[in-house]
């Protein structure tokens, strides 16, 4: 979309570029990411406060995955800055960011197919010398399905169970900021609802969540705030309920027929 869109009415958050308040955990400032000559992100800015759930929405190819991979350290931005907990983190590789508590659940349910559920969860705690038994118990309590399939190989799980395993594995790394990339992809509505329920629990236990979704209705229902990404740029932002009420969002992502305004 080429026209610049003014922010929807009733916007509560300040419209100036994200101001780092004392509770800002993650601040992404005008980052540009390139794949060779392709500019996938053309100056993206947003912030995530401690304890929030923030949703990043957008159509296919908008740059959501790219944004998240950049935050988690799998990609490095060519311009701009990312600050986490007051420190610059852009350019720091993923395996070091995990030590700071940034855990990533990549797009497409990457579980280790030939490791058991148990071994998968153990890999999540790879950064620790020993796995924390209470973490393991918590994860298994959160996902009883995983407990039932404890010795089954990851690759033999159903799609929903694999997604649960991927989330559980990330939780084993004791995240402070949890990045989730389209956890609802390809799952039945009932399973999606279940997973979003669990995400709320995770957030309630004190983990900040940055959620990438195409499933706007579900994501905005859960999120405190949301940003809409379009061809590498943020075009909309607002609280979850505001965005949910926004006509353009409803038209573009919720598939509702809106009378021509």
């Amino acid at each position, binding site marked *: 979309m080429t026209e610049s869109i003014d922010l929807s009415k009733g916007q509560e958050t300040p419209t100036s570029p994200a101001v780092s308040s004392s509770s800002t955990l993650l601040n992404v400032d005008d980052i540009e990411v390139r794949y060779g000559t392709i500019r996938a992100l053309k100056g993206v800015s947003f912030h995530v406060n401690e304890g929030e759930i923030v949703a990043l929405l957008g159509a296919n190819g908008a740059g959501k995955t790219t944004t998240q991979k950049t935050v988690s350290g799998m990609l490095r931005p060519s311009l701009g800055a990312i600050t986490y907990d007051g420190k610059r983190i852009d350019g720091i590789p993923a395996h070091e960011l995990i030590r700071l508590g940034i855990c990533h659940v990549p797009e497409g349910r*990457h*579980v280790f197919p*030939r490791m058991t559920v148990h071994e998968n969860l*153990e*890999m999540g705690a790879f950064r620790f010398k020993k796995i924390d038994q209470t973490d*393991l118990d918590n994860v298994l309590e959160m996902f009883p399905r995983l407990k039932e399939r404890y010795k089954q190989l990851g690759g*033999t799980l159903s799609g929903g169970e694999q997604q649960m395993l991927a989330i559980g*594995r990330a939780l084993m*790394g004791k995240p402070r900021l949890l990045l989730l990339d389209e956890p609802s992809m390809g799952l039945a509505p009932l399973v999606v609802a279940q997973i979003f329920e669990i995400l709320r629990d995770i957030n309630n236990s004190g983990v900040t969540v940055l959620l990438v979704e195409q499933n706007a209705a579900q994501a905005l229902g859960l999120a405190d705030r949301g940003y809409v990404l379009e061809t590498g740029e943020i075009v909309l932002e607002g609280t979850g309920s505001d965005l949910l009420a926004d006509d353009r969002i409803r038209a573009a992502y919720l598939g509702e027929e809106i009378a021509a305004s």
Partner: protein
Amino acid sequence: MNTATRATLRRLAACLLGGFVLALMVGRQEGSLNDFGISFHQAVVGPRIFVFLLIGLVIFVMVTFWPRVVPYLTRPGVAPLGAGLLAVLAAQTVMNWYDPLVSSTGNGKFSGVRTAANASPNLSSVSVAFFGWLAWTLVIAALVACAAAIVTRVRVFGYVTAAIGIVGAVLAYVAHSAVVDLDGGIDHSLGVYADIVGFLLLACAGITAVHARAEVADTRGFLRKVMGYRPGLPIAALGVILGLLAFSTAGWFGALQINDTLAQAHSDFDGTGISSLALNYLGWLGWTLFGAAAVLSLAATYLRNRMLAWVSLILSVVGVVLTFLTLRSMTDIGAQVAPQFGGTWKNLGAGGFLACIVFSLFAAATAMVISSTSAGVRRNVRAKAPTDELPVTSMVKGFRRSSNAMPLLIIGGALALFYPPTLTLTWQNVLVGQIGVFVLLAVGLNVVVGWAGLLDLGYIAFYEIGSYTTAYLVGALPVKPPSWLQMSPLVSIPFAILACLIAGVLLGAPTLRLRGDYLAIVTLGFGEIIQILAVNNPGGFTGGPQGPTVPHPRIHLGGINITWGQDNLPYWYLLLIMLIVVIVLFYRLEGSRLGRAWAAIREDEVAAQASGVNTTRVKLLAFAIGASTSALAGSFFATQVGYFDPSLFTLQASILIVAYVVFGGMGSLQGAIAGAAVLTWLPQFLKAQVPQDDRQMWIGALVLAMMIFRPAGLLPAKRRKAELEGLDAAASSETAAVPRAGAM
């Protein structure tokens, strides 16, 4: 003619044609490109064509009646029947039975012995009959009886099979020893032993077929039950049998072409000034030690008495030491009496070393009793039932050590120490220069290919760099190192490893971001470059295609003086130390954090990265560790062969090592060892068994068959097996996967 008959006829024609083609392929291919006629004539015209047509016919019958046979294939007794038949067939067709015949007539196989037996009037009629017609008749009778036992489950058939099998085994032994007694000479052949094992397996098949209660064969469960009945008892029993052979019939001293048994050695060495300990050992002490250790270990394993086990263990260790001392003083005397033939550790027969192995077997058996608590015994007996409790640290601890590990280690150690001295010089050469070195290489490559999942086709380059680094540092290259850097071969090993570490990192750092095929191509190019560099002799550094001459290693440390020379056996012990160090190190590595990281990137690189694995560093480490193992092997090789040239380090060698790893089972340490050992041993073994031209064909056939029937490799890694057999197959147990035989 309906379609069914027509199809059958077409199949018959195809099978006969196949037999015809096989006849053309197998056998000495004489003649030149211009006269195919000669080889065609030899292959086709003559009675041997009927053998091949018969093979075609048999295949036809097998294919046609296969569906009728299938329901019986899961019955108990089928597995030992197959194994026994295979062993007997191999023994009576391709294996050697009597080595002196090879040198005199060129054929020491079963058929060669038959010809010789028919021509010697003094041979007992039983032997003549056995080699003539009895052996094959027994095989066929056993096959028929066993098939009847499997199909009908009538006990008598099983007993008849067992009787035939045992008679066959005994007759094979009797007939073979009659031939050896009559003709003398040094015989290392293994045919008769394979034959005995085969016949005994047939006997087991008969018994299993009629006595198993289950409808469906659970071979592994059966084996577990046998081994778990009294842990260690089978090992002790094996020790008794081997011990009887060692102390009564085996050769103990073989200078001047005489094979002295223990008793003969006693009379020969009496009065030569041999130490009284050795003389007593040869006279009565050896037998007494053996008898006591045998009785004690049998009793200890049967009664599961730890007290007895400890006594027997100590006695066994004493037995090994005394045997060793005796052998040593025998060769000392031998060196004094006949210096032109003798020498320390020279001319010893198999008997003494076999005795050492026997005592080690007793030690292993009793170690099993000592290490297994009462709970352990129960665990052994009960088939490993899936447990419900959640293991907390399955991967952290690495794979669980079974209670069988210790005795296996003792037996393996005993074989590695005491078996090589009994080999012929040729086989010692093969053991060091082929088997040992390539096992070391395969173990190193397994880290790169099997564990980290990086296909490295230039692996031999590191071997080459290792060899040349050692050659440079000992001053064997045209360009000499500065005098302060010149060193002896063994000292150069760490430097060779360092050089390859650096080379590995230099190659790996820019290329490891490539995946799969691309990495393979880059490493392949690297291997070629290194080889061509060595040939092209840049700056006169490598000496070009001639290659360097490297001195043999030597240790002068305080009072210890060890020199290695032409004899291969001492190199074996040097190599064994290296192998043990590397294998123990890698074993620990597999269960370590690094091992888990490798498993993770092999499984899913994105997920590994998301789990906090530093993928670049971990891959680089795999590459570097592989490279330095290769360097160790190369350095050893350079100083062992003494002279090498760059034509050895070809792409073909790299590919062969990859093949060893794949054949053994990618990602499995045991697999890499077994794969390299089997595939380096086999060509040498086949040398004496099949015509030179057919060798590659047989090896190819084996590899093919292997990849069809055990695609995950000889000793597959757990995870890799799941990859190839599908994820579901790995989850279900063996017995569940075998379909129940229907109503018959």
